[in-house]
């Protein structure tokens, strides 16, 4: 983790500058999770792999350790090392699908 003081803004100024924006983002996340709870249940009764990964990343935010952005990205990454046989699609999901997953291309990250 980079040492304290690498951002030139003072502590309170940093909060002044960014608090409302990130307050809104936290509420967006809360509303997103509520929306999922209110949506129609999945056909297979299992929680989507993206949501499972998403919930795990939330734990990083409150564990009190640094490098949160890096660790969230690592948690959402494929850690295998060998190239795959053939590209199954052109898009990406944002989280690592289980081997059995045969869904359509994920939204986003398409270019």
């Amino acid at each position, binding site marked *: 983790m980079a040492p304290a003081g690498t951002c030139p803004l003072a502590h309170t100024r940093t909060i002044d500058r960014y608090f409302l924006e990130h307050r809104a983002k936290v509420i967006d996340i809360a509303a997103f999770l509520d929306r999922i709870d209110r949506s129609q249940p999945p056909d297979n009764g299992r929680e989507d792999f993206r949501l499972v990964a998403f919930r795990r990343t939330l734990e990083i935010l409150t564990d009190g350790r640094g490098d949160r952005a890096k660790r969230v990205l690592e948690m959402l990454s494929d850690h295998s090392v060998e*190239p795959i046989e053939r590209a199954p*699609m052109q898009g*990406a999901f944002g989280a690592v699908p289980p081997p059995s997953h045969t869904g359509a291309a994920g939204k986003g990250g398409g270019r």
Partner: protein
Amino acid sequence: MKYVDPHAHMVSRTTDDYERMALAGCVALTEPAFWAGYDRGSAEGFRDYFRLLTHTEPRRAAQYGIRHHTWLCINAKESEDVALARSVLAIIPEFLTAPGVLGIGEIGLNKNSKNELLIFDEHLELARRFGTLVLVHTPHLEDKLKGTRLIMDAIRNQGIDPGRVLIDHVEEHTVQQVLDRGFWAGMTLYPETKCTAQRACDIIECYGRERIWMNSACDWGVSDPLAVPKAAMEMRRRGHGEDLVRRITFENPCTFLSQSPNFRAE
């Protein structure tokens, strides 16, 4: 403020965007070949695209005093069709001597497949043979970490000087290893994927100002041709000085790109 946007897909943008970029201080940009949003059907389609990149766009940019440069390749998304990819690779040398062509790019991986890696390697061989710079696209989202490592290994195996390779779309989980291995690193400023202006500033604060730049990668998707000057504004709002802003948005791109005799910032 004078700046360089080292990654912008201007074929997807209107002339108004050239004007806005010029008004914001853009003096030069580089445009990598990329995926059109659909798979092209033939190598001839790429020949037309390369003519657009090497002839039409420089003229459009020049109307606003912006120097246009380009990179040539077939995108990794279209590399599963190895026969098509090889037929495109065969026509690239016809364009490598055109004014403003900097090298091979944006090559790389998309889903980290064997065919993608094969065609990536053949692009590298072309770059090595012609002694050009290389601009590398790293995969999206969950595929980026693995793909970045495969890419760096392939470049090392080709014996290409990492100081002549820019690895683009780095984020917090890839930037350190890219810099540690001697490559240049690019941060792409997108509102939803890749890197926001705030995170780009965080990365500069955490990983330093050496061998790193920012770009808009503006294209046909959600993107902003003014992303670089907006990120510069974010740096200033945090209290960073003009020397750092200029270093990241002008001097660093010029230092890397000037390794090609075809690059001119002004």
